Structure formats: C-alpha cells, structure tokens
C-alpha cells in the first residue's frame, strides 16, 4: 500500500498507445478474437468453402468430414460457410447500430453538456425514458411494428444505444467543461460550439471508444437474439442467432448444431468485451503516468 505520488503531469493517453496496448493481456487476447471475427466476415465476401445458400437435402445433418469441415445443417448447408457469412451479419449490425448510437447519442450528450439548464434536463429525461424499456423488448416492439429484417434490427438496436451514449457523453463532457483550459478558451472569446469540437470532444474520445467496443458486443448479442426470435436477419441470409433457433428442435439428435453458432457468438462477445476492458486500462491516465 503506497501513498507516494511523484508530482507528474499526465500525457494525453494516446502517447505510446500501441506500446501500452500490446502489453495489456486483455487487449491482445480480445483484439485477436475480434480480428478473427472481422477476418471471418471479410473472408466470406471473397470465398467460402461452399455456397451457404445451397440447400442440399441429401447431405443434411452430416457430421464433420473432409468436404464439410463442421458438417451440415438440417437443410444440407455447410456449417462453416454459414458461420462465415453469419459473421458478416453480426458485424454489419454491430457496426451500424453502434454507429447510430454513437453519432446521435454523442451529439445529444454534447448538446446537453454545452447548454446545461432546460436543454440538459429535457435530453436527460428523454434518455431516462429510453432506459426504462428493456433493450430486447424495444427491439421486438420496433420490429413488430415495422416488420422483421436486418435493417429494422439495426435501427432498433441503434436506437437503443442512443441513451447510453448520451448519458456517458454528457457526464464526461461536464467534467471537461469544468477544466481550466476550457475557461481559458472562453476567455479568448471562443463560443460553445468551437469549444465542444476543439476541446471537449477530443478529450472524451477515449471514453467513447471503450464504450463503443462494449456496446458492439451487446449489439451482436442483440442481433443473435432477434434472429433467434425470427425478427432479425431473415432467411435465407445466414445468421448465428437463427442457426441457434433452428438447432433447437434437433438438440438431442445433433447437439453440435447448437454448439457451433453458440461458440461463435460467445467468442465474438468475449473478444469485444476483453478488448474493451483492455482499452479502458490502456486509456486510464493513472497507468499512463510519465513526465
């Protein structure tokens, strides 16, 4: 237990970022898993072992073999190909949904923080209202109203992300507004917009990045849940969630059908969460002490 603090100024957390990041176990492991996920999706654009849309009943429910590396599903489709293309759906939904939340939520959060007063109150109360609905329920509601499909799934999950980012942005931005260099900027005559763009946003980026990776993991889970319920990505487009749903009825005959997509989901989510944890440590200014 130490109480010693050498008087130092902390550098901006991006100095020596890669050096610190590569030494952080969580980040490296999580990063590799995430890279695997992205690679799988990217690969699927160019090549898959078989065509995942090929329904081929005669070869259905086969175990792993030389031709079908992990076997086939109830419709005779190659599982490996399904997993690869399914990765695509997960990533697309994840990126766009988080992107929506990030852009819109952050904008609202910055606005609330810059204006304070009634603007802030209203924005935060609306965000609270958004939080009141459980995520999946909102997504289900939205897709029930507007119809199922990948696009609607993206929108639903995206909308759900907005209050989270709004709240986090506002809290972090408030802390920056209280700093003296912002006061110095105001003393120069800078307006709220300039200050927000030039001083506040760059200083809260690290928080947003960490949050985005974590929400990405949640988005993948949400997409899987929605597809499982038949509300997300629609057939014939492959989706890990729907693979799980289809495996349900055959759980005792071919249990591995559920294991493969389940493991894929678990690894993707684990990877992103680990990476987010690692990033949080890397960005923590206390660990970035250097003069």
């Amino acid at each position, binding site marked *: 237990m130490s109480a010693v603090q050498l008087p130092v*100024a902390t550098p901006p957390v991006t100095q020596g970022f890669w050096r610190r990041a590569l030494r952080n176990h969580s980040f490296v492991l999580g990063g590799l898993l995430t890279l695997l996920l992205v690679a799988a999706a990217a690969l699927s654009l160019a090549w898959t072992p078989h065509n995942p849309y090929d329904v081929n009943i005669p070869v259905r429910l086969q175990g792993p073999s030389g031709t079908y590396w992990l076997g086939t599903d109830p419709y005779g489709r190659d599982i490996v190909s399904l997993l690869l293309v399914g990765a695509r759906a997960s990533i697309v939904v994840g990126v766009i949904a988080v992107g929506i939340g990030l852009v819109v939520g952050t904008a609202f959060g910055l606005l609330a923080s810059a204006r304070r007063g009634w603007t802030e109150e209203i924005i935060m109360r609306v965000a609270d209202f958004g939080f009141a609905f459980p995520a999946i329920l909102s997504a289900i509601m939205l897709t029930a109203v507007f119809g199922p499909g990948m696009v609607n799934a993206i929108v639903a999950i995206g909308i759900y992300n907005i209050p989270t980012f709004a709240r986090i942005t506002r809290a972090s931005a408030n802390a920056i507004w209280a700093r003296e*260099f912002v006061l110095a*900027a*105001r003393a*120069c*005559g800078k307006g709220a917009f300039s200050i927000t763009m030039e001083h506040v946003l760059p*200083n809260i980026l690290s928080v947003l990045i960490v949050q985005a990776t974590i929400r990405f993991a949640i988005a993948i889970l949400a997409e899987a849940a929605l597809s499982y319920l038949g509300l997300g990505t629609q057939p014939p487009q492959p989706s890990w969630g729907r693979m799980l749903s289809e495996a349900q009825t055959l759980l005792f005959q071919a249990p591995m059908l559920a294991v493969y997509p389940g493991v894929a989901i678990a690894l993707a989510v684990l990877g992103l969460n680990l990476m987010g944890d690692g990033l949080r440590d890397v960005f923590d200014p206390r660990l970035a002490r250097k003069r």
Partner: protein
Amino acid sequence: MSAPLLQVQDLVRHYTMPREKLFGPPPVVQALNGVSFSIEAGRSLGIVGESGSGKSTLARLVMALDQPTAGSVRMEGRDLHALPPQELRRARRDFQMVFQDPYGSLDPRQTVERIVCEPLAAQGGASAAERRERAGEALASVGLRANDLGKYPHEFSGGQRQRIAIARALITRPKLIVADEPVSALDVSVQAQVLNLMQDLQARFGVTYMLISHDLAVVNHLCDDVAVLWQGRIVEQGPPQRLFHAAEHPYTRALLEAVPRAEPPGARAAS
C-alpha cells in the same frame, strides 16, 4: 484625461445556491459586495485575498466570463457586460488571462502552437502562416524556443507550462493581463524565474497587470498599487510600501502578521 484602462464600479456578485428547504428562500452566497477600483495603463494592481474573499469571482467578472449582479466593469470607458457578443469578442483582444494551475490551464491534447494561437484564432483574420509566426514570437518572448511549438504540454515542467500560458496571454498584444495566482503552484526557484519574466514583459511590452495573489511578497514585487480584498469588499488600498509598513485595517495587519518571516526568531539577519 483619457479613461483609465480598467474601471470597476460597485461590483456585486451574489450566487443563489440550490434550495435546502422546500419553503423559504434559497441560500445566497455573497461573493462580491460592492468592489470599486481603477487601473491606469502602466500601473499594475495587486489584489490580495485569501480563500472566500471573492478574488476568483472578481477575476471572472473582469474577464467578462460571468455576469455581475450589479455594478459595472469598464475597459477604456466601455462597459464590457453591455457590449453585444461580437463586440465583446473583438474587445477580448485587449485583455487576457493567466490562470493558476499550469497543469490544468493547457489542453493536454493540443500542441503548444494551437494553445498559444487560440486567442489569435478566436479573433480571426490572421492567416495560418501569420499565426505561426506570432506564436513563435510569443514563445521567444517568454524564453522558449520555436521548435517547442510542435510539442505537447506534458513534455514541459510546471514553470515552462506557465510560460506557455503567459505566451498565450501575450499573443494578441493585450493592454491588460489578469493573472490569477500565476506563481502559487510553482516551486520557489521557478517562481522567481516567472516573476522576473513578468517584470520584463511589463517593461518591454508595456502590459499592465491585475495580479491576484494571496502572497503579499509576490504582489509587492510586481505591483504599483495593492488592494486588500476581504469577504467581498476592498478593505484597504494603496501603494505597497505604505500598506506593508503602515497598514490601517485590522485585516491587513492580521494578514501581514501571519506571514512567516524567513528569519528565525532571535537570530541575526542574513548578511
């Protein structure tokens, strides 16, 4: 006779705090209770006060970063708080501020060049090349080098960061610099360097200071006039020599007495 550089008249600032009881008036903090003084160009003023005296509030009001409850702040005759926003922004060219904390007053994510140029950029009109040149000049006048422009604040020591802050305050060639405890966070030897620098800048650029400090010795060193602030009012004012040798107000006397002298009791003075 021209208007004084800065004229503060009956300045009052009350803050209404959040309600503590459901019924009954919310508590009011009376930060400033009628402060008046004026600063002539070339005669620096020191404001001496402890915590709770209202000195930070005074600094913010003079810099037009806050609205007074009553009273006025006039810069060369113009009431700052009555100016339309565009006019006020242009007027800011003539008055700038140096803050206490060298670690907090510089944005850690911006280069020294951007930091120092900020007041100039806010004024508009200068090209990027012009701005860089002026930034280089400003850095040179505080004893830093042109190749420091590309560095980040964390690469500098506390004293150097304060110099950067001073360079930022100088870049628009202001007439008045409000310095809020500019050396309090610095070590003694660094303090001396920065104080000497501030003295030099006074001589070279003819800049006038409104220096706020709890440290009487610092104020004594740089200022032609001193005003003692206590509980939101100026209790005594005058040239430092008179104040420090023949103070009249009991608070001033208490303040002077409380400062520990750098002479051990009963010892002969350093030769």
